């Protein structure tokens, strides 16, 4: 995990996604284009149910796209001839409600990827998993089941479970949504620490603008459904970052710059009052 990542550039070109539950077409994403450089932290901000997750699902290979193409390091993931991307360990998702297997200990969870991919024998995978959990500061917890630890611990272990596979991209779907502000701040710092170590490309969905600016290199504000990019903000706050950033002048200026755009979309989304799509 020490070497710097040079892979994981994502290129989203003119992607459109139309759902048709019960024969009524619903456009979730409309002609959305976005370039994410390798090793970049790209934060996607938008009102709930705007189609952010649709984009993540397309990259991860959970859902197909209707039009457009998505590339990973110039190789096509999905496009007109192959609407559904293959799922693979080069793009690992950390889920909104957490998806550690409750029937495996934290250590077994983390070792799962290398074991099923047969890159390491079981013992070595478990040893490596233990080591990584130790590094992440939750070594004491590794023999526990996810149901026995706090949500913060579980989420941290889930990120370790992703990183042990050396993914090109980490896809995070509002992973800290259900957490209280204090836990959230600890999670942010540990994610920044992980990022500074691995430089993995991060595609992070959130509806929290301050979180987005604090963590991201690039903040993409999406319009309400159908989603397209409304505003792209480059965050030129130097890394490594810590909590001092939050009170800096630059941070405040960036938040102000994006606030109106986010607020405008939030109002539109609220007035449309449509049910959120998965």
């Amino acid at each position, binding site marked *: 995990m020490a070497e710097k990542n040079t892979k994981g550039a994502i290129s989203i070109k003119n992607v459109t996604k139309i759902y048709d539950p019960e024969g009524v077409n619903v456009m979730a994403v409309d002609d959305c284009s976005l370039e994410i450089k390798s090793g970049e932290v790209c934060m996607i901000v938008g009102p709930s149910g705007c189609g952010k997750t649709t984009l993540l699902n397309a990259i991860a290979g959970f859902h197909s796209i209707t039009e457009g193409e998505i590339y990973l390091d110039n190789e096509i993931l999905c496009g007109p001839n192959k609407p559904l991307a293959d*799922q*693979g360990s080069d793009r690992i998702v950390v889920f909104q409600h957490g*998806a550690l297997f*409750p029937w495996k200990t934290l250590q077994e969870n983390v070792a*799962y990827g290398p074991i099923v991919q047969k890159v390491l024998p079981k013992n070595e995978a478990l040893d490596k998993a233990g080591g990584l959990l130790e590094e992440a500061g939750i070594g004491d917890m590794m023999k526990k089941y996810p149901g026995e630890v706090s949500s913060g611990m579980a989420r941290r272990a889930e990120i370790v479970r992703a990183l042990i596979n050396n993914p090109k991209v980490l896809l995070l779907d509002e992973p800290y949504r259900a957490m209280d502000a204090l836990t959230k701040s600890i999670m942010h710092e540990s994610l920044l620490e992980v990022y500074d170590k691995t430089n993995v490309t991060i595609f992070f969905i959130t509806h929290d603008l301050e979180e987005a600016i604090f963590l991201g290199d690039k903040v993409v504000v999406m319009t309400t459904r159908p989603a397209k990019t409304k505003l792209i903000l480059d965050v030129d706050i130097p890394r490594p970052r810590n909590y001092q950033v939050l009170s800096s002048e630059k941070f405040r200026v960036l938040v102000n710059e994006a606030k109106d755009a986010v607020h405008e979309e939030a109002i539109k989304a609220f007035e449309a009052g449509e049910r959120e799509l998965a």
Partner: protein
Amino acid sequence: MIAKSEPSNSQIVLYKIGKALKTPTPYLTIFGVSLWLGAYYLFCEGWRLPLFNKLPGPYEVIVEWLNPDPDWGISLYSPEYHDHIYYSCRRILIAFAIATGIGVPLGLFMGWSKKFRDYSFPILETLRPIPILAWVPLAILMFSGLETPVIFLATLASLFVTTLNTLLGVNSIDESYFRAAKCLGASNTDVFLHVVVPGALPFIFTGLEISVGVAWFSLVAAEMVSGEFGLGYMINDSYMNITYVSMVIAMLTLGFFGWITSAFVRWVGNRMMQWRVKALALEGR
């Protein structure tokens, strides 16, 4: 930090007993059982209510049960009683094993493969509501002897329960576990073994607990209709021979063994799902 040695097993047991005695549970249990026995005694032997005047009271039943030389033919000491218990338990064991062996894999495949479910679900749903007594003539026509039809009926009843619960168990698994496994590079077989099976286990064991109970229901029904031994037969036979004391003994025995078997299934389930036991314990359950 103070180094603490792990408590020994006997210490844990003592601690648990001590803790249990501080909760109302054991006292309420004793109170509940006494209340029930007291009412039973008063209705039959105390007040002799007309509704109960043909039934033997608890005192009479207990005396007979413990009598080495039973007045009505059957007590704890009679070999015939042991035979009845042995036959019923053996049938339950065979029926439950067959039902579990077929029902769990069937339910898992039905939950996992939509195609397989499309083939098989309508058949399951058509056969399931047919009451077990309606199968009795068919069982007697199909199988020769006395033993096979009875086991067949008990198996059938618990098979449906097990299959349906397993299927629901697979359906209950959160989609994100499947996605996570796939992301981490799991093959379809891996997903089946590491997500479908463990994820469905809680429902499977709930199903098995019900199914072992259902196996007893249908076993007794079948034994009453056709059979030579067994607790169901004993109930019916005692009724025919007007030995009501033996009938009550058989009923209580049945209840006791039914309880033991479900407790055993629950115990196995908890052994296999430590992850769940621990998580529930933290929620105070």
